[in-house]
């Protein structure tokens, strides 16, 4: 199934420019992996980058750099094509970061009835925070705004809110002032990957999750 909710164009452009925070890039790449529409859009954004590169005034490159490069390709043995990642519940970029191939292998921490969370450790210096969130079938999250940058990718199951149905592969890349009240569908847990800014100015995702949950 092709995703029906996509990355915002401003996110795609920032990703193409290489300026997206690492946490957000992991979500973007994980969505791109399953979304031909966003891949095509990314190529257009990258074409902008190519055009701007072409228009850059060149800097003088030293003869030594040229000589070194020409010498370096002499001995180069092209690396073998990358092996396809083994099949996994998790998108390949995320599976590498988490070191797990199935959602069952993840050390979930229970945060509230029906709600579990896992902090994805990003390399030191990486910007943003990345969390996996597992919400039980039929549960509703309290209405909340995002009060900060946040992108959510559904990895398993589905939820609904006033924007529609978000199922595996769909991404909610919303303006921070949009409020919503997601309700997980009845037929199973919903697992999401959520990138947020470091919670400095804003109430953190964790704090919001500690709010009482209502079963439906």
């Amino acid at each position, binding site marked *: 199934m092709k995703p029906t909710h996509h990355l*915002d164009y401003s996110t795609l452009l920032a990703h193409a420019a290489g300026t997206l925070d690492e946490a957000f890039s992991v979500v973007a790449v994980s969505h791109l992996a399953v979304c031909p529409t966003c891949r095509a859009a990314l190529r*257009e954004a990258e074409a902008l980058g190519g055009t701007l590169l072409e228009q850059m005034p060149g*800097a003088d490159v030293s003869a030594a750099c040229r000589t070194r490069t020409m010498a370096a390709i002499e001995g180069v043995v092209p690396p073998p094509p990358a092996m396809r990642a083994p099949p996994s519940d998790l998108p390949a970029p995320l599976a590498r970061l988490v070191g797990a191939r199935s959602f069952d292998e993840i050390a979930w921490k229970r945060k509230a009835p029906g709600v579990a969370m896992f902090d994805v450790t990003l390399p030191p210096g990486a910007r943003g925070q990345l969390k996996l969130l597992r919400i039980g079938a039929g549960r509703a999250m309290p209405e909340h705004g995002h009060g900060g940058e946040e992108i959510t990718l559904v990895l398993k199951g589905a939820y609904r809110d006033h924007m529609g149905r978000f199922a595996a592969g769909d991404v909610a890349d919303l303006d921070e002032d949009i409020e919503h009240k997601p309700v997980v569908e009845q037929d199973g847990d919903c697992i999401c990957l959520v990138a947020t800014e470091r919670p400095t100015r804003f109430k953190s995702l964790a704090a919001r999750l500690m709010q009482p949950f209502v079963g439906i």
Partner: protein
Amino acid sequence: MYAVMESADKRQDDQKQRVETLFRNLIVQVAQQRDRQAFSQLFDHFAPRLKSFMMRKNTSAELAEDLVQEAMIAVWNKAGLYEPSKGSVTTWVFTIARNLRIDRARRDVHMPMTELGDYDEPSEEPEGEELLGRKQEDGLVARALQAIPEEQRQILILSFVDEMPQSEIAARLSIPLGTVKSRMRLAYGHLRRILETGL
């Protein structure tokens, strides 16, 4: 007047087309014959631009040249993976340079962020993508960049050329983050429209 402008555009397009065809041929020679002469021509065209690209954000000339060398070696190694249907040679070189820069500029942050191989399987929708490749040769992207309003172009330059995250752009221009995003969206919308309909 229009006739004159059109013919100037056409000459520019023809020129771009010839250059792109030349690059594609060079890449094929590198990929299939391991042709060093062809590679050195690519080096002479791209290395100075790559060096400017790598020197953004106060990167030293020395590190920039290391990165140029690395990027060009990647061009040598990956030439066989270049697919014209997915964009121009210049765009392909840009993506190589961008990924390298992300890896190296944040030296301690080794992230599988931009590994296109993860999702660049033989492509669906070849028509749309081939169309993009062709249209880009036509110089439409360059013209689209000229055609969009200055306040949108400025955001794209700060993002792609000055390598500023959206929040930094907002601070630099003293505008809300939401405005930076909406200008990016508008700029992308313009680009899309121009790519689809021509200028």
